[in-house]
């Protein structure tokens, strides 16, 4: 009997898994189930160049390799339920799919604020940014002079703020944190980000919560915990994300913050046992990375769907063929997280896990350059380099890649 792999989530992680299955010699059926109508596309441009230039699927679609030309794409219908023991997936339209291997790649969605005021809909002027359709809806609002209030000053919030400002909007970014991007980057580079945004005319309200949206049908203002009301034509909610795991709710998988996995990305049951043939990839996979330690973590970086997809494709192909599976599981998976962000003329490049720096004031320190201009900052835990972030100095930042996770004091 030919076997079937069902991949749920038709995005980067799903695509790379399908390619890796084929590369590893799996020639039976692959079905990819996706909630969106679109074939896989690249999300990072949605807050950057594509948001500025104009939105179309062709502008961001991933090229399709010949090896996956026989994959079945079931798009526009989300998965609704799954029976892990009987190996059956149920879609929202009631259709069922039996599988021999299952890959969970359903990623994240934006969290919306639950405060009084108009509902979280585009019609009400409340936007979020995760999908092509979100970006298309937001793009039409970004006209010169429009008053945009961005809630959340993480990467996506800061990128949207920069893009909207570049398009001539009046932009205010609101965050509960003391600096923009302080969680991933720390105060040192957070303050730099703020300075650079302010120089371009973005305003900040930091240390501020949102208590209500004003307006009847459409948002007209955002009320802050300080009592101030920011006038707003458009609100962009970029506060944080939820993992799309509701369709697994009836299973006994450990769904605490994504899908708990081992180092082979095998999903774990709540009793701690891994399930052969069931893997997670991409933003929602919570896995231990021996480059740092043995704590399972999710990593919302663009290179992780590709790294995990390759890992899962080869392990799953080995499992289904019965050849080389033990070796696949025994091998170590230690991908280097990599992230970039473009905001105005600032190119940020991050390698490793800056967020894992220790609490010592000296743990986050300048390695090269000048904070006011181009700079490289190292994030340490004791003597170990956990991550580096550069503003500019691209070539020099790259030189630290191989030092990450190790005790190192200079580029190697």
């Amino acid at each position: 009997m030919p076997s079937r792999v069902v991949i749920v989530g038709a995005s980067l992680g799903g695509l790379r898994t399908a390619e890796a299955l084929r590369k590893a010699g799996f020639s039976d059926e692959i079905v990819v189930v996706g909630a969106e109508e679109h074939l896989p596309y690249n999300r990072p441009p949605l807050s950057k160049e594509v948001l500025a230039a104009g939105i179309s699927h062709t502008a961001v679609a991933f090229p399709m390799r010949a090896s996956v030309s026989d994959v079945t794409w079931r798009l526009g219908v989300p998965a609704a339920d799954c029976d892990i023991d009987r190996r059956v997936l149920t879609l929202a339209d009631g259709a069922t799919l039996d599988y021999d291997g299952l890959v969970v790649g359903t990623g994240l969605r934006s969290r919306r604020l639950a405060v009084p005021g108009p509902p979280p809909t585009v019609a009400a002027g409340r936007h979020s940014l995760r999908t092509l359709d979100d970006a298309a809806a937001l793009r039409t609002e970004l006209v010169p002079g429009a008053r945009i209030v961005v809630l959340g000053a993480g990467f996506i919030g800061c990128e949207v703020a920069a893009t909207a400002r570049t398009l001539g909007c009046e932009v205010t970014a609101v965050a509960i944190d003391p600096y923009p991007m302080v969680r991933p980057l720390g105060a040192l580079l957070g303050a730099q980000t703020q300075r650079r945004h302010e120089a371009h005319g973005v305003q900040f309200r930091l240390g501020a919560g949102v208590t209500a949206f004003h307006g009847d049908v459409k948002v007209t203002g955002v009320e802050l915990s300080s009592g101030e009301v920011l006038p707003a034509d458009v609100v962009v909610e970029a506060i944080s994300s939820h993992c799309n795991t509701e369709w697994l709710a009836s299973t006994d998988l450990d769904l605490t913050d994504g899908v708990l996995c081992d180092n082979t990305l095998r999903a774990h049951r709540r009793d701690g046992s891994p399930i052969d043939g069931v893997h997670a990839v991409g933003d929602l996979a919570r896995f231990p990375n021996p480059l740092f330690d043995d704590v399972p973590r999710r990593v919302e970086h663009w290179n992780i769907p590709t790294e995990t997809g390759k890992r899962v494709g080869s392990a799953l192909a080995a499992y289904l063929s019965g050849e080389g599976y033990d070796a696949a599981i025994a091998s170590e998976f230690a991908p280097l997280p990599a992230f970039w962000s473009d905001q105005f003329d600032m190119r940020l490049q991050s390698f490793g896990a800056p967020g894992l720096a220790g609490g010592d004031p000296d743990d986050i320190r300048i390695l090269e350059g000048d904070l006011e201009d181009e700079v490289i900052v190292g994030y340490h835990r004791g003597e170990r380099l956990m991550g580096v972030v550069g503003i500019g100095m691209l070539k020099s930042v790259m030189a630290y890649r191989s030092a990450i996770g190790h005790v190192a004091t200079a580029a190697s």
Partner: protein
Amino acid sequence: MRVTVDMDACQDHGQCCFAAPEVFHLDDDGHLVYDANPDDSLREKVEDAVDVCPTQAITVAD
């Protein structure tokens, strides 16, 4: 194997240079230069470079 980089799309991220240093590198100004006709033995590395390019600017033909 023929390698093409869409230089309008390329933003000199340099990720490709790590995946396939034999084929891609950044010059002293930080701009991408590459070998458009690398040896076939480098195919796997070049395919990895295609995957890691954030702007998906690299294409490979036989």
